């Protein structure tokens, strides 16, 4: 226990003592739908707002949410330049179904697979869907867990606040 507390102290102090410009998203390896490994620290939208949405093919509300937003996504992009990054937390059991599902529904999002939920957990996720709105500097400015019809309007209002 002492060791742990010491470790934490060390962490806190190191953090304060050496400043450096860092990417703000934690660096975890995830894959794109073609199996290419990328680091989550590299996720960005050139200074414009970005939404990271964690979903799964077995999660009904997640699919409802992303299908609903897909209908208006073109307008959102036109009006605010926002990018939605949809990260599936499907594991080996259902990961092969991600790309066919995305294609069937014609989603225009950037898609990744976080099949052992390491990025999801690093972002504090408990249950999907989880939406995180990231501003141009990489700060998380809005978090929403779960989905009810109409929630997309609130998300969009938050996105608008960032571009006004």
């Amino acid at each position, binding site marked *: *226990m002492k060791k742990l507390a010491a470790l934490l102290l060390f*962490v*806190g102090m190191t953090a304060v003592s050496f400043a450096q410009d860092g990417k703000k998203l934690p660096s975890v390896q995830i894959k794109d739908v073609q199996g290419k490994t990328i680091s989550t620290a590299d996720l960005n939208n050139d200074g414009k707002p970005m939404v990271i949405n964690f979903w799964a093919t077995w*999660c009904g509300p997640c699919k409802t949410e992303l299908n609903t937003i897909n209908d208006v996504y073109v307008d959102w992009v036109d009006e605010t330049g926002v990018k939605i990054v949809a990260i599936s937390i499907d594991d080996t059991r259902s990961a092969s179904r991600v790309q066919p599902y995305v294609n069937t529904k014609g989603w225009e999002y950037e898609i990744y697979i976080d099949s052992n939920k390491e990025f999801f*957990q690093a972002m*504090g996720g*408990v249950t999907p869907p989880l939406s995180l709105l990231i501003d141009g500097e990489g700060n998380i400015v809005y978090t929403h867990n779960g989905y009810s019809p109409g929630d997309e309007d609130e998300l969009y209002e938050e996105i608008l606040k960032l571009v006004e």
Partner: protein
Amino acid sequence: MNTKYRITLKRRLLLGALASFLFVEVTAQNNDQDYGQIHGNVSVTMQQYNEDTLINAAVPDPGTAMNAFTNLLYTRGNFRAGIRYESYLNRLEGYPQEFSGTGLGYRFASFTNEELDITVGNFYDQFGNGLILRSYQEPTLGIDNAMDGIKVKVKAYKGVYIKGLYGKMRVGFDGGLINSDGIVRGLDGEVSLNELFDKKLEASKHRINLGGSFVSKFQRDEDPDLVLPENVGSWAYRLNYNVGGYSFNAEYAEKINDPSFDNGYIYKPGKALLINTAYSTKGFGIVLDYKYNDNMSYRVNRDAKLTNALIGFLPALTRPHTYNLAATLYPYAVQLNGEVAYQGNISYQFKRGSKIGGKYGMTLSLNYSVAWGLDSTINHNSSNPRYGYEANFLVPGEERYFQDFNVQLERKFNKNLKVSLMYLNFIYNNDINQGARDNNGTEVHGNIHANIYIADVKYKIDRKNSINAQLQVLTTGKVDDHGTEKLEHQGHWATAILEYTRSPHWFVAILDQYNFANPENIYRIHYLLGSVGYINGGNRLTVSYGKQRAGLFCVGGVCRTVPASNGVTVTLSSTF
């Protein structure tokens, strides 16, 4: 015996450490300098129990139970660290018995840059598809096989990724982390040919990744009778190929002999093959999966049972269902000792504006999956009497473990109305899946045949208010040779759900699960459950009251049995 890390709280020191975290957070908000970010979550589930003899709901001592955990994760530039505080006071009824007490269950620190990623303490990871190594957490089910040791990931060369790990594995929690006696060591390499030969292949439409891994576990042999292997090695090779909308993903794994409780302490080696292929284009997708598993249960403790101490992960090749009756009554559980499974999935989007598709289009999905036992013969070779059996590689046997055929239609009729209809047909081998018993301990032999019909209507009243109504009916039974229909197990069930949501903050739901055609009259019970929820950003609070049926609770193909209960449940979760 397991090594136990008891947390003897040096509270002041811990608080000091936490305060240094908070200090970082506060200064981060008041200063232009980057002091990093703190994220994490809190999740609390409390349940109060009432006695209800009719549904077999007991009241544990002290009448209430609570599972809770809090993760604190700190990120600053390339540096990350975190802890998880867990409480099981006492654990919820039905939660695995390996969880009790309150204390720290997870702590780590890691450093990452372009080439290197080092983690010390606890971590999760997966090699390839996870067949020989998957360390992960599923808190709703009580699965947590976190590693505790060191992990190094290296980007050795462009397109070449190597990771190595060495440590113990979490096998329980009792006021603190309980690690395995045994040790797990692993090495995994993956090569992206397109990145490696970027001059030639960068622009190629063909994407190829190759991978290989080796895992070894060490566990002392303390068996008085058997000579057990103390080091058990396993290895796997994988290929991932994509071109256009086509993908092919295969992994083959082997393991040396590994006598265990699962396999009855036989000395046969194990092997597994997993293949996923898919093709999709706009509006259409098809997936075909195949899995062969022969004796690939791989645990850090050879005597462990159920979901405890597993190193490898063997996925169920069935569609993960979410509708109440389909998900909880007869869900398939993976058979670690051996199975041969197939799955096919087709989805098709009827175009917008077409006659069938209507203004918004309509989606049709078809799914079929089946799992068989191995085609095996008992080994009579006297030179190695404990070899167990011989199995025909890749070939299914004669005993069917599970079959699921389902079809779903989803159509949006107008801006506000969405309807989904689904039909499912299960053949569920209860001898295999539940050991010829049910959740109440009653003997149930042979196959259960179930048909499930689901109608799900979502109606958006206005911008903020909407209603979801579901009606689900499950019938069991089969027409016998004499043309009479015979009920199976608990007969027919129906579930009705009515949910009202007011975005973005509120929901109210009522669920009635009714065993309307139980063969015995007194068990024709309504399981009524009401819930109210409040959501604000990353925070959710739900309060439910009512009866919950004994049954299987599954997430992502792994299930645990939940006993019947009657009482109040409060869940709070917060992501920050």
